[in-house]
């Protein structure tokens, strides 16, 4: 048994880890594993979607081979444990990149599909699953299901965003996107109010592929922030060498607390504000600013932390965002990471995909027991009232009825579950 914890480090639980490292033997290993089992990638999910306490975890990181790349069409076939980092590094200088990437490259293709992840360019490129053109899914009864938007389309839309519950994704084919190279023409703009954020978003979406905002949640009830936008650009600068720091230890208490947070936020704001300008930036620091600090999640101390990520339909988004900020401010619970971003209209293919047209807001909170739970309950009521929902990839605590109401295709999804697979999240939110 191995102790495993997900990114939020809320709890560590024993798992029997079964490595998958070879696609020839994978189906055999999968069908003979002790149940219930669950596939796992890099454990970059924050809560319990990727854990299965007491059960089996199929560690897919060893399925790390590229299979083929078509230089004409840009379709990449690879095994599901390949890291997005390796895809970007291999192809960016050759003029291709992933069309959609989350805020860390340290995730697997399988994890990116199972949570149908989104990036800074949702308004133009939707989610990761929108660019997956084929999947091979292995079920615990030994069946192998080939699926795509055309072939077995129901299996495809159950598996994209399917939280790992429909089977193990063995291989995937991804339609890559043409880029001029590894560079982004990026710009940071300071905003001083939430309405400015909405105006900047509206004004930028047509002309900028990437937009995202960081919000200083601790100052003046959370109004000011940095709006970042960018477009791919050609440049002939040499690529930077990889630099990496690692957060060396878990401090005995969270370094993120009431005393340090305003200071963190203020200095970050000042740093960004004084450097706010247009620049040509490498995709690595533009897309993945936190990847240069290994294990930064340890900074929240031994109890771990939550991320609360909601999406609110556009109509009520501004009001709901203000209301959530007011709750945080009243609770005195600031967050270092407050990220605000608009989602576009393109429908996700997955039955349980999180993104929908509107505004998504993500906040990190150190675990403080009942106090944190009470704040979440108040945030929940704002999200419910405006018809929004929470992101399973980040969740460790949403009430079951909130999940049921937030995901109207849930009933349809259940028919595609693999009875040999279960996660802590599925036991909590689906009852098995």
């Amino acid at each position, binding site marked *: 048994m*191995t102790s495993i914890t997900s990114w939020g480090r809320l709890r560590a639980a024993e798992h029997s*880890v079964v*490595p998958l*490292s*070879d*696609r*020839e033997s994978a189906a055999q290993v999968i069908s003979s594993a002790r149940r219930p089992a669950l596939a796992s990638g890099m454990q970059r999910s924050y809560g319990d979607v990727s854990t299965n306490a007491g059960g089996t975890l199929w560690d897919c990181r*060893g399925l790390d*081979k*590229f*299979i*083929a*790349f078509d*230089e004409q069409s840009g379709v*990449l076939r*690879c095994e599901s444990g390949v890291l997005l980092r390796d895809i970007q590094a*291999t192809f960016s200088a*050759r003029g291709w990149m992933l069309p959609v990437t989350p805020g860390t490259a340290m995730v697997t293709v399988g994890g990116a599909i199972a949570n149908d992840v989104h990036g800074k360019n949702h308004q133009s490129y939707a989610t990761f699953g929108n660019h997956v053109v084929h999947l091979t899914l292995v079920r615990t009864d030994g069946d192998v299901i080939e699926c795509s938007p055309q072939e077995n389309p129901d299996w495809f839309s159950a598996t994209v965003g399917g939280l790992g519950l429909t089977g193990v994704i063995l291989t995937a084919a991804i339609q890559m996107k043409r880029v001029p190279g590894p560079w982004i023409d990026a710009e940071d703009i300071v905003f001083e109010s939430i309405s400015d954020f909405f105006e900047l978003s509206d004004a930028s979406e047509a002309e900028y592929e990437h937009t995202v905002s960081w919000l200083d949640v601790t100052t003046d009830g959370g109004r000011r922030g940095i709006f970042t936008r960018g477009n791919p650009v050609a440049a002939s600068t040499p690529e930077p060498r990889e630099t990496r720091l690692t957060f060396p230890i878990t401090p005995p208490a969270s370094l993120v607390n009431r005393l340090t947070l305003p200071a963190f936020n203020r200095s970050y704001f000042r740093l960004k504000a004084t450097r706010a300008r247009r620049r040509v930036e490498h995709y690595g620091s533009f897309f993945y600013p936190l990847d240069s600090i290994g294990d930064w999640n340890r900074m929240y101390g031994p109890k771990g932390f939550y991320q609360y990520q909601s999406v609110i339909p556009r109509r009520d988004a501004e009001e709901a965002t203000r209301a959530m900020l007011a709750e945080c401010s009243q609770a005195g619970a600031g967050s270092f990471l407050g990220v605000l971003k608009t989602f576009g209209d393109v429908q996700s293919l997955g039955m349980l995909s999180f993104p929908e047209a509107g505004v998504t807001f993500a906040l990190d909170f150190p675990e403080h027991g009942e106090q944190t739970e009470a704040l979440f309950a108040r945030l929940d009521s704002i999200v419910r009232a405006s018809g929004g929902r929470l992101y399973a990839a980040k969740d460790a605590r949403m009430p079951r009825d909130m999940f049921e109401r937030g995901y109207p295709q849930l009933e349809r999804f259940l028919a595609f579950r693999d009875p040999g697979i279960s996660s802590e999240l599925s036991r909590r939110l689906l009852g098995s």
Partner: protein
Amino acid sequence: MTNPIARIVVVGATSAIAQHTLRAWLAGRDASAHLIGRSESRLASVEADLRVRFPGSTFSHEAVDLIDVEAIERVADHETANGDPDIVLIAHGSLTSQTDSQKNLRAASEQLIATGVSPALWLEAFADRMTTGTLAVIGSVAGDRGRRSNYLYGAGKGLIERVTQGLQNRFEGTDLHVVLIKPGPTRTPMTEHLAVAGARLADVHLVAEGIAHAVTRNKRVAYVPRRWGVIMAVVRSIPAPVFNRLDL
């Protein structure tokens, strides 16, 4: 140079360390690589992966029984028929459970052959046919001193060390270089069980960069990561009465 494209032959090419070493070499320059191993399907998927990563290089593969003497001779003949490869890397080895091997002589024999005898024969076969280039083999820190937890594996690695010493002596002053690599514990499928037990393992990517560098420089013996050179000097110097009481 008439042929600027380097030719690399890798035996045990499905090993994680070998794959990452190839990646480190090919990131710097195009080459042609011939991949040898025991499993056709695994070799094919390694080759496909390398083709995607390095479209400027060329690849081929060949599955053979790595412990069959005739097969070793045939492959070595073929790979040296039209000139010497620039680099031959011999990377296979088998780390099975020491306690299983103690209880079962057949398992002990397989372990010694796969880790020691077979790589030694591959070394010998290429050494007899090459006059230029670099012949590199992956030993291990485990070959430096026998200890209860893995001495049969260590004995295989120690055997390789004696062979490379002999070859280095035999080819001193010629254009054929023999390199012995001794990795410390590294995170690969071979050490999955150690990782599960919480051992501190080096990143295979960094180890591979160290190997690529040492082989390119024709080092005689290279510990990777380098600190293992110091650690093993200490381990070798502990007097037996003390050493044997340690649980290593």
